[in-house]
């Protein structure tokens, strides 16, 4: 319990929900089981989330690279998304979630993919390329301090710490 930001009831609730995702015969040993990604994505909290694949990828510790999550990964995820997590932790993980190509910085391609995720899937819901250009220009202008064309972790954390909405929107409660 001291390794996460969750309270005891929340951990117990998480255990219950996690074991519901497993097929019946594996439920007793839920702590050591891994749940494949497709099952995790049926959780209502993640179902509607455009970042669901990234979340699974970031929190999963499976060596096979199949993005399956164990109970500890699940707890980790809930802990980061809980109310009492520090904004440092949240911004660190948010950075990793938004970094679509896993290269350690948010460059233009990452930002473009991020905006497309936000506006929804489907052709008519994307911004036109001029609008996208303008938007990305503005974002970089506001957050890229060292003007290298990409946003690294410290710049991201800095800009997110000034953002009033981040703490209230970056949370999932079971």
């Amino acid at each position: 319990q001291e390794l996460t930001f969750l309270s005891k009831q929340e951990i117990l609730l998480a255990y219950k929900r996690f074991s519901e995702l497993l097929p019946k015969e594996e439920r007793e040993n839920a702590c050591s089981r891994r749940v494949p990604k497709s099952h995790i994505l049926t959780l209502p909290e993640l179902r509607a989330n455009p970042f669901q694949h990234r979340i699974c990828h970031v929190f999963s510790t499976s060596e096979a690279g199949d993005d399956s999550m164990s109970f500890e990964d699940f707890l980790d995820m809930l802990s980061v998304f809980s109310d009492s997590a520090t904004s440092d932790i949240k911004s660190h993980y948010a950075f990793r979630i938004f970094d679509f190509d896993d290269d350690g910085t948010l460059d233009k391609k990452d930002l473009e993919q991020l905006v497309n995720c936000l506006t929804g899937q489907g052709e008519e819901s994307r911004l036109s390329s001029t609008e996208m250009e303008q938007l990305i220009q503005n974002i970089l202008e506001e957050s890229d301090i060292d003007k290298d064309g990409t946003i690294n972790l410290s710049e991201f954390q800095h800009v997110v710490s000034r953002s009033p909405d981040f703490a209230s929107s970056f949370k999932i409660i079971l």
Partner: protein
Amino acid sequence: LFFPEEPHGAAPVDFLQELPSCQSARRRRGGTQERRAAPQGPAATRVAEPRALQQDGGEQAARPAREYPLCIAEKRRLRDFQQADIKYLSRWKKWKRSSRKSLKKILSEAKGVSSYLVLWRHDIHSIEGRFGTGIQSYFSFLRFLVLLNFIIFILMFSFVTLPIIISNYGIFNSTIAKISSKNIDYNCTIYEPSGNKGLVYFYTYLQDLLSGTGILEVTSLFYGYYTIDTVWISIMRYNLPLAYLLATFAYLALSLLWIIKRSVGGFKQNLVHDADPFQSYCNKVFAGWDFCITDPNAAQLKHRSLQYELQMDLEEERLKQKIADRTIKEKLRIYSLRIFINIIVIAVLSGCFYSIYRVTVFSQEKSNDISNLNFQASLLVQYLPSIVITLANFIGPQIFSFLIRFEDYLPAFEIILTLMRCVFLRLANIAVLLFSLWSQISDCAADKCEPCGYNYKLYPCWESDVGQEMYKLMIFDFIIILAFTLFMDFPRKLLVTHCSCKAIQWWGLQEFSISDNVLEIIYGQTICWIGTFFSPLLPAIATVKYFIIFYIKKICLIHTRKPADKPIRASTSNFFFLIVLLIGLILAFIPVGVSIASIPSSKACGPFRHFNTSWQVVPDTILGFPRGLQQVLFGMASEAFAVPFFIVICLVMFYFMALAGAHKRVVEQLREQLVLESRDKMFLIRKITEAQRH
């Protein structure tokens, strides 16, 4: 081969890994993460508030394991590593550490238990999941008001009504004492509330319930009931007038402090950075998605609204460019049009105020010969001011939103300006009502108020009358909200779902407009604040009213409304609600202050019968204090103290403002330095690469 236009990212990676800043960041992170192959760039500034508690003497400042962004297996390893260190600590440090841990455990248990007690936790959570945090903030605001009203009610009840109840039943050997009046003209003290004597029709009860006259007038609901002067509980003397006044101040101060405490968070954001916090692109993009949304339909809506918002912002930027390019002729035309429209707005407002004034005067005059009218007509007359105010509150915003289209402002500014006008309309309506009431009460033409200082024939107990008006306003407000929901929303929903004719489908469901709803409840709350001085049990009615309104609005939201296309964000809305609530509270200070300090209190009823004004009780009490204390208190109230105090406060304020400005400048300078440093670094790296290749 050196390409001058080489993009920055092409600088060789291995150099960046050897930079000292990278090394220290990696060391701090524990270096156990194999997943991130690439370096993190410049040092991750880990300024997580170092838990000062953890700073033990000889030990390195270690943070609790959970604050590291590692997976759980790594964190466990880290914690075991940290605990292994403990063996080398002295016994004192070990004890400190373990006691801290157990304290934290106890606190978190307590927190867990107390979270069950939070009202409506599950309801608000489900609303958040379906509709996003903007609407959720409206409902948590409503919950805040319920709590506030409940606390105010407890305050007023325990200090003002409870002693009287105790003395009526003689608990604790309590008795009451009424001082007989001296030096007061007999005429001023005639007060016969028409409590029901003899046979009455049933509808008089209903009428009394709705308008606060008759039976209700003599209960503890209104000011007139509290005619006791002191209550003796065993041997202690409980000064009721003083308690009444102090409880009034206490609830106003409590509301003020609580609202300020809640709004401090949003305010800090505004003061700290100068970029417009509500419009910043980064805020929209990085914090744009509400991770709590669980419903796919809501997610669709959110996608659409985000797309709309981003497109609007980009559009606005282009508009700003266009405005900057306006010619002089166009500017003149626009400004004259704006002045003209503002004149229209002022005319509309004054029309509202004048009609409220006339109607209040008419209603007061007519209600004094009630016996001539039948039930419905008299009820209509009683409620006429409330009806007119509600009509004005309804029509005004429609007119404003119609007019603002001609004024050609930026879209964001249009919204803010319309909101400001609506807020002003609603609050000023209450002010005009009160003003017209007072003009009636202090109508001193033709010697009507000669001996008592107020119009004693018509208003022998004027505080109760004001309390009745506030009570009527509150009840009517509640009835209107109920009626609108029942008679407008549900039929509309039925029509839309069952009738597939095109016109009705186009009309569609009504949007859940947050700002209108918020203004409604702030209007109700302002009435409650003003009315509590004249009617001490009003907060109880307000609590019940808001409690029921929560459920009504929730049902209404889920079944009959669709969420707005242009939702307000959570941070904007929280701040906005609290600022408007604060304006309402400050507005409420004025009538209460004027009634206490300058209008003579009624001589026929109430706890302040023997004083000139209600405020008089405080100086009188002070005169009963020991001499030294008296001198101190009088000294504090005199000019010799107040003026230097005021000057000192101004100086302190200027100091803090100068400090904030200096800090802002330092931040800018440091930022510029950072840019230069990074450019230097890239330049040097490129030079080294060049040199290496040769």
